[in-house]
């Protein structure tokens, strides 16, 4: 009796077929989406949380260089915090003497540290700036970077 039961159980066992059609569909959709968003120059730039970049029609690529991040409450060079910004005024920044500011000192050091073998005449600063920041704040950064030897710069924007 027991032998008969076991025989019956053995017969009824069927290897289950794995239904991968839906999984294939999902993978195909993901693959197509990723192929569309493929970039040969993936962004390695850290954008501040809450920063809103303006939209532009510009098609120029960002060069990987010195990045200055300017939001309504802080100023950074890369990941280095330089100063707080309060109501459009960079703390510790004297408009009449930008050369005394921390920003100027850091940029000047970076300018000196640039590889002299390379052509540094066109070296530019990339400015990531929140779209709600007024010009008086941007101007302080732009003017100081010009004084520190970076007259050319790029404004980072999102593609329209």
């Amino acid at each position: 009796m027991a032998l008969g039961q076991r025989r019956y159980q053995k017969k009824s066992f069927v290897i289950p077929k794995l239904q991968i059609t839906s999984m294939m569909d999902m993978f195909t959709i993901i693959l197509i989406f990723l192929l569309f968003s493929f970039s040969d120059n993936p962004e390695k730039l850290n954008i501040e949380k809450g920063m809103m970049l303006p939209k532009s029609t510009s098609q120029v690529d960002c060069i990987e260089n010195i990045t200055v991040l300017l939001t309504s409450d802080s100023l950074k060079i890369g990941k280095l915090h330089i100063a707080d910004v309060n109501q459009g005024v960079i703390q510790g920044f004297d408009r009449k003497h930008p050369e005394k500011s921390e920003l100027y000192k850091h940029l000047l050091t970076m300018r000196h540290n640039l590889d002299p073998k390379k052509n540094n005449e066109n070296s530019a600063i990339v400015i990531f700036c929140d779209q709600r920041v007024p010009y008086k704040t941007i101007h302080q950064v732009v003017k100081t970077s010009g004084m520190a030897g970076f007259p050319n710069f790029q404004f980072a924007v999102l593609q329209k």
Partner: protein
Amino acid sequence: MRRFSRKKQLNDTDTDIDMVPIMNMFLVLIPFLLSSASFFDINAINTSVPVRNTNAYQENLKAEKVEKIIPVIEMKTSKIELYALSDQVKSEDLERWDISFTKQGGLFPLSDLQSYLQEMKKQYPESDTILVIPDDDILYETIIQTMDLARNATQSQSQLFPNVVLSDKI
């Protein structure tokens, strides 16, 4: 006939396509594409601040016979003032271009400004530089919009003034 259809039925067995290699390929492709995907396109606008002219530059400018102008956009809180600067064009001719665009409904009439810039470009096609002087309170977004229209013509793909210089009041 019946025999034939029965034979056909016997031959029509379900053939399972082996999807495992395709799945393997997907599993390799997806992490690769994920690592190189950019979910937001960051571009850049090339700008500069005014720099002091060298003697060589001034000599080159004198040697050039082509007339060039530098349009200046002064962005004020309530209006945009536009005028032109040039070392090669007479001041009477430059004064013709003086104009101001008052804000309409809280917005700058940027399309009017652009069509005016197109006229300037048509008159002086060799000009490629524009000066933008915003007031302290002008927001960055508005400056970018103005720079965009100063660089590109709307109707054609041609460029208006590709070199945008951001400046303080001269």
